[in-house]
């Protein structure tokens, strides 16, 4: 069907304006991160010195964020994939309630979750000062994304029937889980994993209240640099962060484009 020309023009103009609004500031940030003096402008020359300085100042936060993200991923996978299977097996009211409950840490602002963790577990000294405290917060926040992605991967494969057939043939639960269910949910698990790592690397709202001076993660370092460093250093640090996100987002979009018609992504970083 033909669309009115005015309609199309308005849509195109709005789309380009929104794209400029979203990407313009990112380009500014990238430029500022590699410009010798941002106030003078590009004429002052390009440099990688700021990135080197970021590495000197904040390398530990980058490694720690990767560590936290991988630990979060290990836990969400270990507990999330079985939970998703149970939710698939029992698609009733109780399941919906359970999924609704697990999603609460995403629906409720991170500040509230962090305060609740601090009042209940903050007095346990070794935990409060450990990076594990941050990992727990990240697991709460990312688990629903893993469960949802894995459940989506389990649907349609008629796994319940396959599982019962294998059980009738005498396969143990452990074998059925690892030989039938996990392979069938593979693409869902990969989507969930990329989502979990992306969200964990960028998580700030919980982490800001849960961290200690010795357990700073990348977004905590970013907030620190925005408040106290010159614009070029803050921009270079942001650039490093964007480069860390890039492969994860490309991977997610690649999978989304392959598996569904429209490449909508089921993630949203903590704002």
């Amino acid at each position, binding site marked *: 069907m033909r669309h009115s020309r005015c309609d199309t023009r308005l849509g195109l103009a709005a789309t380009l304006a929104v794209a400029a609004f*979203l990407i313009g500031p990112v380009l500014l940030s990238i430029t500022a991160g590699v410009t010798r003096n941002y106030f003078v402008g590009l004429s002052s020359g390009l440099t990688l010195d700021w990135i080197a300085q970021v590495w000197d100042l904040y390398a530990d936060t980058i490694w720690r964020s990767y560590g936290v993200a991988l630990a979060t991923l290990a836990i969400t996978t270990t507990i999330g994939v079985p939970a998703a299977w149970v939710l698939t097996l029992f698609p009733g009211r109780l399941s919906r309630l359970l999924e609704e409950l697990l999603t609460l840490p995403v629906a409720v*602002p991170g500040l*509230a979750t962090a305060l609740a963790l601090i009042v209940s577990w903050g007095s346990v000294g070794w935990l409060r000062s450990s990076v594990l405290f941050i990992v727990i917060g990240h697991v709460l926040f990312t688990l629903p994304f893993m469960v949802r992605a894995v459940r989506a991967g389990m649907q349609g494969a008629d796994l319940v029937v396959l599982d019962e057939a294998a059980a009738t043939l005498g396969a143990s639960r452990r074998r059925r889980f690892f030989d039938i269910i996990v392979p069938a949910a593979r693409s869902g698990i990969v989507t969930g994993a990329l989502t979990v790592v992306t*969200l964990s690397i960028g998580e700030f709202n919980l982490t800001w*209240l849960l961290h200690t001076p010795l357990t700073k993660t990348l977004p905590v370092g970013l907030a620190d640099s925005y408040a106290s460093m010159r614009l070029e250093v803050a921009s270079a640090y942001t650039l490093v*962060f964007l480069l860390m996100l890039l492969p994860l987002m490309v991977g997610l979009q690649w999978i989304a484009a392959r598996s569904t018609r429209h490449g909508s992504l089921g993630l949203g970083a903590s704002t």
Partner: protein
Amino acid sequence: MGRRRAWLVIAAPAVVLFLAFWLLPMVKLAGIGAATSQGMDASAYWLVVTQPRYWQSLINTVALSLGATLATLVIALPVSRFLARHPDFPGRRVLMSLLLFPLAFPGVVVGFLVILATGRQGVLNTLSKALSGEPVVLAYGMAGLFIGYLYFLLPRTIGVLMAAVEGIDKHWLEAAQTLGASPWRRFVDIELPALTGALTAAGAMCFATAMGAFGTVFTLGTRIDVLPITIYDEFTNYANLPVAAALSVVLGLATWAVLYLANSLAARTARGN
């Protein structure tokens, strides 16, 4: 059935983790807000609803979130319609990736991007000074926060609305066109009613996300009076845990309720009644 029941045990770790580290801590937090302590003559919940400075902060947050939500829907709708109706044109994949990349940006980074665009050394200020001689700095107040909210809400909304536009039955639009309905009439009489559910769901998601946003405002300046900053201040600067707890519980309940309503509405729309 008994065979199926045997599986239940493997969901236990997720349930235990949720109970130990989220539900019970939340209950404790809610209890702290209800206790009277530190020479206060009423519970923190009572203080929160009676003291003007707390509900002023709440009103600011609701007004700003509502404004950002409406603006997001108005802007995202033509974008989503355009993208849904033009499934292949050169560069569409790249454009989509660019529109969706900011989904992964945490609030702190969004705040910094707003500063780069509209702060003291921002492009907007430079342009404005060059053109009219007047400085324009938006970043460190409500206007900057509004821009930040638009920034993180637009990518979230465009994806949802695109799927809804793709779901509209084209035959209706074609029939209306054959019968001579103008593009505007087709939009108002067919498209908008078909999109009501998706618009409401997306709007509720935007509102809840904006209400709880902390990182963005944290970067822009902690003197902007919105609820997440008030909670943070009460907790860290005044060590007033009961009030911080009460405000968190109120904020948490509000965002959860809005999201819950939106999800059930979206589910009902998806079932088609």
